[in-house]
């Protein structure tokens, strides 16, 4: 007998490369999501205004915020998607076990998050160019924050990628829990809405914990630790998951 002896790292890398090819629609859906967000953003995210002598003034503020939020949503949905039966069982056509499957999924989601962060950031610049070209020069007032620096896109890419990977880890956990039992499809939304109703709102605390963090290194620490924790939890239901039972 001639056995294939394969170290797990090699299999994980093979699966990772396979997933980049086979889960191509993940990136197609990213484009769809961000184009939708661009469309919604082109009307101005925030409008403030008021009347004065002879003029009813509206200040339309354009930001890439909605694109970023849509990208979070994309990450969350996709992470759930790759825990579904069809995706999970695809892996078992080829060489895999549940550890290598989990590791390659994490690698894939991390890569997707970086791509999400990159495209969401750049799409913000695309929005600016579009708005510049479609608006009248007289009514165009440019950037109200400090001038853009070259470090800005870098901060944005890193931050969005960290947020997205955290959303992915969260979606991945939820997806794996749902795979455990269908009933969780009902229980989890109930818990989330319950969390919103709680007083003081837990969701607000969580929101402030991440969004309120203005030190980028602490933010990095918070998100990375959370992501690792969520991914670790996801492996518990996945470890004993049977294929095509």
């Amino acid at each position, binding site marked *: 007998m001639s056995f294939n002896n394969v170290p797990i790292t090699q299999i994980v890398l093979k699966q990772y490369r396979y997933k980049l090819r086979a889960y191509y629609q993940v990136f197609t859906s990213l484009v769809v999501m961000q184009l939708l967000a661009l469309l919604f953003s082109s009307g101005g995210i925030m409008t403030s205004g008021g009347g004065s002598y002879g003029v009813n003034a509206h200040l339309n503020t354009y930001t890439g915020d909605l694109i970023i939020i849509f990208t979070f949503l994309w990450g969350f949905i996709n992470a759930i998607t790759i825990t579904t039966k069809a995706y999970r069982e695809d892996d078992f056509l080829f060489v895999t076990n549940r550890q290598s499957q989990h590791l390659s999924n994490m690698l894939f989601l991390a890569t997707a998050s970086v791509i999400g962060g990159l495209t969401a950031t750049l799409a913000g610049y695309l929005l600016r160019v579009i708005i510049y070209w479609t608006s009248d020069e007289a009514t165009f007032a440019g950037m109200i924050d400090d001038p853009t620096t070259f470090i800005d896109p870098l901060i944005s890419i890193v931050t969005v990628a960290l947020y997205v990977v955290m959303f992915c880890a969260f979606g991945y956990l939820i997806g794996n829990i749902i795979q455990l039992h269908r009933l969780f499809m009902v229980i989890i939304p109930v818990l989330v809405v319950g969390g919103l109703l709680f007083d003081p709102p837990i969701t607000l605390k969580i929101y402030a914990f991440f969004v309120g963090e203005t030190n980028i290194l602490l933010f990095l620490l918070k998100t990375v630790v959370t992501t690792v924790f969520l991914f670790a939890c996801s492996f518990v239901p996945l470890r004993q998951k049977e*294929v095509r039972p």
Partner: protein
Amino acid sequence: MNVIEATDLTKTYKGVPAVDGLTVTIKSDAITGIIGRNGAGKTTLLKMLVGFIKETSGEMNVFSEHPFNSLHVSANSIFIDDHMLFPDALTLGELLKEGERFYTNWDMTFAKTLFDYFSFHPDQHHNQLSKGKKTTFNMIFGLATRSELTIFDEPTTGMDAAVRNDFYRVLLKDYLAHPRTILISSHHLDEFDHLLEDVLLMDEGQQVLHMPMDDLKEYAVSLTGPDAVVGQWLYDKTVLAKKQSAPGMMQAVVKQDFAIEQAERLGMKATPVAASDVCIYLTAKTKGGIDDVL
């Protein structure tokens, strides 16, 4: 050497056993048929062997490892049936390339030759194929992996007769060129008994018999004679089936643990029983079959 060793293996679904205390060993480099009626536990056993599902109790080793979550077992085994899900995003050509990347023994020339012979197109997608085409592609994929343990679960479902014959020929040729352990499950032994070296007959999650094909062919004999003679003869024999063949005449299938000459001397006519019929008799639910129920 034994590729598979299982002791008191049990798998239950919601309390109902699918495989029930099975103890079996399967030797390497042989084609073994897993035969049984629907719901005999064949598929459950095979899925446990490749680590898809986990046994409820008992012990099991494949290549001396517990298959569930074993990378070694996964790298050296393949499970082929008509429910295989291939990713929609990849074309058939790309799927073969992925197979090559994952399975180190993959034979691309072999895969391509069959791919062309069965007139597949590399740009097709698996979900666009007809049922028969799907199973054919799955078969090509499975054989091309050259896995040390290759498992076909009801491989010919949906194939037409010509493709089915092609499949058996390909399987045998490939096995002769690259001997390995091949398991084929089916509910009837009829058309591929010439391939098999061993037969494992299962019923209700348990092993009914496990023996070389040659022994199975001589396992039982059919005796025909007058009622009284046959009736008396059967007294201390293991009867698999019996029926009234004509008024006053009885036909009985019995386990062949005696010398046929003795029976012939008493005026009974002995005819051999095909291996597939033996399997049917051994796993029949009631002695009389469906006629007795209705």
